């Protein structure tokens, strides 16, 4: 969708595993901006404590989560004056190696594309209501306490 500023925002939550490269290829192929910065995050196969992970449950606050993503994307894309933003974020049960988040920012120059991608990623990680519960191969479950350090 386009907001008032004319910046194209394509944001969605995904219940199922998705191919981030097929998505990027089709999205970026439509824009072909001079500069595109991308971040792709995948589920780790080990917890920070070193346990082997079997899966992860990604809980979110339906309604607020989508609204926050929209607001954060509008704010940062306007602040950096970029052309377009693509965001996909998994929810539900995720397997190690699956894509958790893909964020792409298209702009006329590399600086705004890169800075917007970084800033918006941090905003999503800290301001959008998602919670991760790790399920270890040994059968233990625990809620991840906040984010890994930058």
């Amino acid at each position, binding site marked *: 969708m386009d907001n008032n500023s004319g910046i194209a925002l394509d944001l969605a939550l995904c219940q199922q595993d998705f191919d981030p490269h097929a998505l990027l290829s089709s999205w970026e192929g439509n824009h072909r901006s001079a500069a595109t910065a991308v971040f792709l*995050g995948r589920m780790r196969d080990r917890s920070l404590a070193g346990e082997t992970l079997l899966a992860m449950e*990604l*809980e*979110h*606050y339906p*309604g*607020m989560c989508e*609204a926050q993503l929209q607001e954060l994307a509008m704010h940062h894309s306007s602040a950096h004056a970029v052309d377009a933003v693509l965001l996909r*974020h998994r929810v539900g049960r995720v397997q190690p190696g699956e894509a*958790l*988040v893909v964020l792409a920012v298209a702009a006329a120059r590399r600086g705004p594309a890169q800075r917007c991608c970084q800033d918006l*990623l941090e905003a*999503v*990680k*800290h*301001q*959008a*209501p*998602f*919670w*991760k*519960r790790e399920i270890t191969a040994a059968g233990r479950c625990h*809620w*991840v*306490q*906040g*984010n890994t350090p930058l």
Partner: protein
Amino acid sequence: MQPPSATIEVLLFAALREQAGWARRRLPLKEPCTPLQCWKDLQLGGDTLPTEIRVAINQRFAAADTPLIAGDELAFLPPISGG
């Protein structure tokens, strides 16, 4: 009978939801009321809101002393871990 509008909805997520054993509760609105007052009344963990717990009212972040009004959706959010 109380009119249905004179209530608020309280939502818990993630670890908070598991600790409390419930996800959603409708409460009668005792004005004046704040998120902190609800936290105490619902015995969610002490007489102050832990600094790591954030409050949302009607799906937007809000301060713990914001006055609540009938029909509000109040949520307590444990530390976020998205991305």
